[in-house]
């Protein structure tokens, strides 16, 4: 409980850092953000009025206070370009992004754990050199294919050529297949590499040898001795991969025209729509941080040792 509490404190601190960073971002941008956003034709009056609307003419501390207050009450401001409330956009778009990221994450874990473990068993102690060779090369290849390239290729083959899947949108179940595959391949490859390395460490541990000396059956050794002990390290990396997945959705959504948050962000950056960028970064960042904490706490409960390294 103490551990969970301390972890919560760290989460809050991280969220504050995130808040501060997104707030400062707007003020660090060279030039006047409003001027840049409205373009050169905008008259000084227009700029001044928009500045006032956005509260940018207030002293900095007050701006920060309003910003924090706004975020806490769910008010992320209005888009400079469309003037629509950012929160509206987030609430309609963000669930779609999660709908893509969550099954992808599950699949990554479900694929990487057994594959990594199995390869570790087959390649321990210098055995199965060609298995190791193939594993390293194949995962290396998958790792080197960025999700947006894979998405493009998949789209080329299955949408354009074979026409087996819908081109865009998320209105049917089959529209999930290609984006999820594109998202899963790379992270699954890199996580299975990590799982293999961790499993090799655990398989060489003295307690696994001791279990073998007691002639415990292989299945029991795997479930009770190997799996729980490689879980902590693997899932710690797993959360980093989750972070990568959420970023990956940004790109993959663009390929498949997925109505998530990713299709908005590049537009927002190009149009310099700062309140929107702030909102998106905040929501995505907070999601990552919260998920990280959840995984840490769950691991802390499952494996008491993992608490020792924290804080």
């Amino acid at each position: 409980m103490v551990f969970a509490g301390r972890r919560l404190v760290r989460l809050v601190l991280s969220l504050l850092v995130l808040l501060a960073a997104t707030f400062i971002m707007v003020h660090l941008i060279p030039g006047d953000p409003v001027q840049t956003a409205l373009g050169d034709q905008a008259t000084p009056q227009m700029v001044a009025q928009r500045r006032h609307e956005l509260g940018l003419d207030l002293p900095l501390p007050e701006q920060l206070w309003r910003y924090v207050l706004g975020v806490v009450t769910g008010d992320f401001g209005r888009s400079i370009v469309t003037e629509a409330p950012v929160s509206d956009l987030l609430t309609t778009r963000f669930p779609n992004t999660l709908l893509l990221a969550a099954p992808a994450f599950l699949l990554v874990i479900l694929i990487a754990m057994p594959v990594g473990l199995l390869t570790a068993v087959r390649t321990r102690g210098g055995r199965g050199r060609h298995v190791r060779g193939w594993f390293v090369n194949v995962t290396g290849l998958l790792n080197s294919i960025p999700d947006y390239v894979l998405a493009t290729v998949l789209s080329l083959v299955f949408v354009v050529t074979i026409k087996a899947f819908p081109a865009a949108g998320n209105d049917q179940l089959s529209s999930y297949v290609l984006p999820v595959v594109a998202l899963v391949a790379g992270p699954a490859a890199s996580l299975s590499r990590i799982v293999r390395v961790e499993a090799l460490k655990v398989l060489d541990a003295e307690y696994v040898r001791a279990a073998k000396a007691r002639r415990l059956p292989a299945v029991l050794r795997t479930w009770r001795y190997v799996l729980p002990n490689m879980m902590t390290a693997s899932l710690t990396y797993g959360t980093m991969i989750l972070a990568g997945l959420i970023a990956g959705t940004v790109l993959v959504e663009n390929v498949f025209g997925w109505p998530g948050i990713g299709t908005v962000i590049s537009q927002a950056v190009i149009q310099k729509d700062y309140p929107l960028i702030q909102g998106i970064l905040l929501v995505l960042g907070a999601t990552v941080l919260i998920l990280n904490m959840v995984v840490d706490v769950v691991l802390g409960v499952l494996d008491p040792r993992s608490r020792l390294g924290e804080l």
Partner: protein
Amino acid sequence: MTAAMTSSRGHRLGRAVSGGVPLVLVLLFVFLSVAAPSIWGNDASASNVAEANQSISAAHWMGTDDLGRDILARTVVATRNSLVLAVLATIVGGCVGIGLGLLSAMSRRLSRALGAVINVLIAFPALLLAIFFAVLFGIGSVGSVLAVGASFAPGFARITQTLTASVVSKEYVEASHVLGRGPLYRTFRHILPNIAEPIILYSTIHIGTAVLALSGLSFLGLGVQPPVYDWGRLLNDGLTRIYVTPGVAIAPSVAIVLAGLTFNLAGERLSDLIGGRRSAPPARRRESRPAEPSPSLAGGSLLDVRHLRVSYPAADGRLTTPVRDVSFSLAPKERVGIVGESGSGKSMTAAAIAQLVEEPGHVEAEALRFMDADLLAPDRATQHLLGRNMAMVFQDPGEALNPAIKIGTHLIEPAVIHLDEKKQDAKRKALDALRAVAITDPARRYEQHQHELSGGMKQRVGIAIGLMGEARLLIADEPTTALDVTVQRQILRLIDRLGEQTEAGLLFISHDIAVVSELCDRVIVMYAGFIVEEAKTGSLLASPAHPYTSVLLAASPRMGLDKSEPLMAIDGRMPGPDADLPGCYFAARCPHADSTCLSSRPPLRVLADGHRAACWHPLTEPGNAPTPEGVTI
């Protein structure tokens, strides 16, 4: 046969891919970055509206863009931009990250603060960070390099911090401090050289990642801006036309994947070279044992080991043999100690008996029997027999217990699995076992995990687990080496008492001849994988026959030594498991060695009743002249 060939071909391919191919690819990319713009630059920028938006054709292998420019030429020319920006981004990220990492590792106060910041940053997806920084630095080449560089910095900082922390705590850095060297000297002479290799490795892999990240930014339209282009930009342009002329997306895709793969593999290859993991064909040459007369064994022995040999293929394809030739037997209730220095093969002997030698290790023996079971051809019944009747205690009591399960689970497992006991009965028995090894408050300890116990207590638990079956033989592999002397005493007393109660035999392995002699009826001395001497404890201590045994006895400091005399000492090193000598393996260090010792190997001969030694010039002459039957196991 076919399978073997396929596998060897697969193996060769695997080696080729991870071997020379990355180097060739890196060189190709370097060449293209340097030369491509001057060779294909014109093709890449020559617009020809007549040929705009063409698909794959003989004239334009990869099609043309909306201005009729050749996609292939553009992709090749874009190599320079893509790679130079990637290298720059890696350098930016590396410099910032390594600097931060070094700083935080050097000062304890900074370490906490920076560590926390790095922790937060590293949790963020690099792409989000890059977008954040792209907003800050502006959209374009400079912006995207800085953005990707900045998003790499936390990773670099983390790895530098971890590596530096591991080097800083090394004793050679502390020694440098003690010798009066300042922090700058320590950083540049000790720390940087020792962390350089993994950092270079990490950087190499990151060039590949940077290519992907920069292309990703360009793909989103946040990277380089027209008329400048890189692969991501080309892919982005191609994507909009994917339904009309699908071919145009292929060339940049292939380029991006190939670049990523190249640097990934180059990193792998580097790490293989650094780690010295050169792949070598597994050598498996089986040697037939020289036919030696092996007399029938004394009947009714509990454990019977004849001409045991354990070998491993070494990295260079040769064979190493940590156990060369070991023969002994152990009667029921008997306590036998195996003494030897590190590398003598004593622990490997125990591992072979307990069936713990794993592939690619290879156990050969003329006979290896425990009770009724042939350990060379174990079946299912043998597994249960061993599980019930053979118990093992390990050197490091903490390492030998699974940190993820309760102490109690360790205890009941053998009883439930090998004795078919019910969980409730097993638990009752487990509590009794904990009580028997003098653990106070067994009910509480039963529920605890190993990290909540002290070292001595963990070793008690290790012994208690052995009590859960019906142990006929306890193999204890250096069970007290990791413990303090007072705790060692407790554990030895416990092993002694429980041995008497359960009437189990004991095979006690230790480097400390004094400890062994406290507990064992008979002592076996091992050197370089051989048994060099075996005798009743008293007889061995009183009249050692092998010069090595006598050195071992004389060199062990004991209470009441004459301080005016130097200790008996022999310099030099035990021949390693890869040595292959024709004669006695101790000859090079032996004060009594002559040419015979160097050229032919002494057999283990009976010198007196129960006293055997493998020496041409034993210190105690054989009581009976060695008969042909005297050549024994």
